[in-house]
């Protein structure tokens, strides 16, 4: 533990983060809405706090170590989540309580997309832009977390990706490697955002909406500047664009990196996680569309196909855009879609959930168990692609799965203790922990009507989900603080 190093990094992060409050202020100024002041205040407070933290520790030049990594990763989301709430809490319209502001800010930074604000369409543009920007920034953080930090921390079996991470490999020194990886991946992220925004604009959105939606699409966030989310436009072309970019953003960014460097699509085709990801979404979409068609929900195959496909991709990748009130869809569909969000996006993407690669490993392990029952004396290896997977990785994935289920159940029971019914509690935890966004029951449209305790619990769920459960939990073990 090196408190001084951590202090320096947090200070720097806060100072950098404070500048992100200036673009919304500029948006407010351009559109002439009342919402400029809160952003300037937020900027000054955040910058000031950052300076105070950084200044005394500015000359500390020691390297970050493994354990510091856990604290930095957790405090990145917690501290930025809290400071990010400042402009939202200060703004006169919408008039949010501290709880609501923090919920909204954490929901943005973890790219969850659950909102407590009703009446998005009449909000000042600056606030709307800020929410989208929070998701986009959160997405940047997540890519680095997922591709560079978690594999090195060895959380939940992600050491699997240690060798594949772009950039130089030096296990002990975090900083140079993370800087290198970050630069490469952010270019891709930025490029995807621009492409997505352009496509939206060409498909018929105005400039503001195109920028706003592109931010929350490539970050797999799901915030929208309209209450009706993607359904506001009622435009199949826009939905098609969204589907393509959600699919891309839910794939491992390491793959994008290799595909671009080699100028070939082969990295995608050869990657068994990507193939599983695609298959899961295809099956999910087929079931959804088929069931909608059989029950005649929209009364025509065209509409069933359009809404079914969109919703399956949006929820399967844990984005959370909606084109239709899916929580009122017939039969098992709402539950199926919520369950699918547990699988989530690929490792190394901005998606949430337990991640496709872990799901794949669980399935393969289950298959191996069946083979072992029939042939008890044979040796079977679990393989990803052509490489056998280390037993340690498999253990870690199992541990992750169990911790995920246990954390989920505890938060769900706690929510029910605050008076929520079971459907609402279950889907609210699923929506938050999988960083999905919309739930079922009374959180089908938004989270505004929950009690404050429930909102704080859900903030916790979003953080636990985003930090892959073990990263925050490890801070609570006595072993961590022992030297």
């Amino acid at each position, binding site marked *: 533990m090196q408190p001084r190093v951590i202090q320096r990094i947090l200070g720097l992060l806060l100072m950098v983060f404070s500048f992100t409050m200036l673009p919304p202020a500029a948006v407010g100024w351009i559109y002439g809405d009342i919402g400029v002041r809160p952003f300037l205040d937020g900027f000054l407070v955040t910058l000031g706090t950052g300076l105070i933290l950084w200044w005394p520790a500015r000359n500390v030049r020691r390297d970050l170590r*493994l*354990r510091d990594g856990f604290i930095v990763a957790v405090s990145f989301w917690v501290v930025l989540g809290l400071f990010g709430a400042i402009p939202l809490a200060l703004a006169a319209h919408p008039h949010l309580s501290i709880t609501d502001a923090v919920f909204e800010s954490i929901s943005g930074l973890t790219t969850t997309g659950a909102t407590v604000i009703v009446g998005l369409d009449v909000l000042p543009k600056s606030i709307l832009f800020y929410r989208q920007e929070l998701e986009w920034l959160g997405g940047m953080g997540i890519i680095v977390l997922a591709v560079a930090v978690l594999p090195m*921390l*060895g*959380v939940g079996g992600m050491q699997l990706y240690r060798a594949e991470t772009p950039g130089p490999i030096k296990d002990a020194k975090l900083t140079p490697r993370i800087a290198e990886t970050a630069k490469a991946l952010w270019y891709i992220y930025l490029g995807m955002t621009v492409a997505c925004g352009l496509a939206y604009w060409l498909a018929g959105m105005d400039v503001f909406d195109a920028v706003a939606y592109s931010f929350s699409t490539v970050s797999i966030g799901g915030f929208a500047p309209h209450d009706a989310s993607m359904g506001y436009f009622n435009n199949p072309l826009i939905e098609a664009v969204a589907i393509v970019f959600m699919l891309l953003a839910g794939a491992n960014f390491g793959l994008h990196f290799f595909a671009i460097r080699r100028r070939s699509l082969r990295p995608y085709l050869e990657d068994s996680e990507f193939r599983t990801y695609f298959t899961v979404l295809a099956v999910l979409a087929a079931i959804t569309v088929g069931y909608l068609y059989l029950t005649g929900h929209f009364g025509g195959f065209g509409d069933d196909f359009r809404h079914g496909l969109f919703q399956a991709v949006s929820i399967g990748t844990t984005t959370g855009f909606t084109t239709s009130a899916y929580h009122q869809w017939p*039969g*098992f569909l709402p*539950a*199926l879609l919520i*369950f699918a969000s547990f699988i989530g996006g690929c490792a190394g993407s901005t998606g949430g959930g337990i991640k496709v690669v872990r799901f794949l490993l*669980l399935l393969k*392990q*289950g298959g*191996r*168990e*069946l*083979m*072992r*029952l*029939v*042939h*008890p004396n044979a040796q079977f290896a679990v393989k990803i692609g052509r490489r056998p997977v280390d*037993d*340690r990785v*498999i*253990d*870690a994935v*199992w*541990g*992750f*799965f*169990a*911790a995920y*289920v*246990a954390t989920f*159940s505890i938060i*769900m*029971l*706690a929510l*029910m*203790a605050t*008076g929520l*019914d*079971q*459907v609402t*509690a*279950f889907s609210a935890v699923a929506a938050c922990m999988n960083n999905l966004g919309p739930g*079922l029951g009374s959180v089908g449209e938004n989270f505004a009507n929950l009690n404050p305790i429930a909102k704080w619990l859900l903030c916790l769920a979003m953080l636990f989900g985003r930090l892959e459960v*073990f990263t925050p*939990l*490890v801070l609570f*073990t006595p*072993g*961590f603080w022992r030297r």
Partner: protein
Amino acid sequence: MMRFAAVRRILGVLIAAYSVTMLVPAGVALLYRDGQALHFVDSFLVTLTIGLVMWLPVRSTQQELRRREGFLIVTLYWVILSAVSTLPFHFSPHLDFTDAFFESVSGFTTTGATTIVNLDKVPKSILYYRAQLNWLGGMGIIVLAIAVLPLLRVGGMQLFKAETPGPMKDEKLTPRIEHTARALWAIYVGMTGLCILGFWAAGMNFFDAVCQGFATMATGGFSTHNASFGYWHSPMISAIADVFMFLSGMNFALHYIALRKGSLRAYWTDPEARVYVGFIGASITLVTLTLLLTHTYSSFGAALNYGAFQVLTVVTCTGFVNTDFTHWPVFLPALLMMLAIVGGSAGSTAGGMKVVRVQLAVKQCVREFRRILHPRAEIPVKLGRNVLPERVVSAIWSFLAAYVLVYLLFMLILLGTGMDWDSAFAAVSACFNNMGAGLGMVGSNFAHISDAAKWTCSIAMLVGRLEIFTFLVLLTPMYWRR
């Protein structure tokens, strides 16, 4: 090649032997003159014939049973015996095949979920027959859990191979199972006798005492009254049930060792038993305190009476109720449904995932934390003083993951049949864990759900009882290949 002749032979014998048990309710019918006696005799004859038809052509086969046939026999044992047990239900209370099959499976897997709406009006012999189904099911489960599953290595249960009473020979199933069965059934019968005496002394009439005694020891949960244990309003009777549910939720091998050594040390030194006690203690405390804090019951005595009973009945997956817990405040109903997922000890008649598996999962998680902090350290997972082999650990993990996935799958199917979320969640919890008590639409019985839902629940009960993999392995092509 699968040795079908040997499979037929043993199943035929089992069915023929089982048919004899239908004569007991016939006797009960004569005793109470409820007019059902002939129906049971008919059922007996049909069942006996089926058994003989299966057995006679292959009676002299020399094929030895192997491990591999075990999966098929175990699965067919539960399916076929459940199917023939439906016969008496056709006559009275006139259940159709769906309901009758549900009722039989529920009895045989010691689930205790019922499709009969008004139990108090059902003939005595039928009530007795249901209790007997539970009890016989329990006998089968003890052998399954202690002797068969460890041999088949399902879900990491090879862990208990060394502890199983009886000689150790991996490939020949029969002698070992016979020996184990005899030792454990003596205990089972003895404890049932004590339980019946206890109920009778505490004020039940003799008939009720026998029926509840059967259902309690089997952690079954079929009752002779609609109100289940609420019928007697007696804390004393509830307390006796508490004790016997607690005992039958423990590993029967422990009872065996404790009796043979004449000491209680076997219980204290067993890591699973300790966690089992701790888990039940903590759950009772939580439920009782919540009941008091929410002013559901005014006195501590009442809260403890109801709280302890409901916790024990769901943890051991018995499924009795002594009060309407479905209307308990806040998270309690859902919590109880979740406790059933943990379930009782391995080697008992209880359902659920089993304490030892959850315990090992927790240990593994703790190891993960330590591995994250010390990536290069070798940290073994231990149960008691024994280091667990990697195979057992991975088998248990697969079991837990399969449990969760199959649970969600059943829930989706039930939602598809038109059930609401709460009812579907509770129905799967009740059936898949072989627990029996549900919430919502299935709060008091399973009579009013659709036929599709009933079949789904019946399958859930069977798959849960067969610890998933026994059944799943039959679906793999590899199993049938030579």
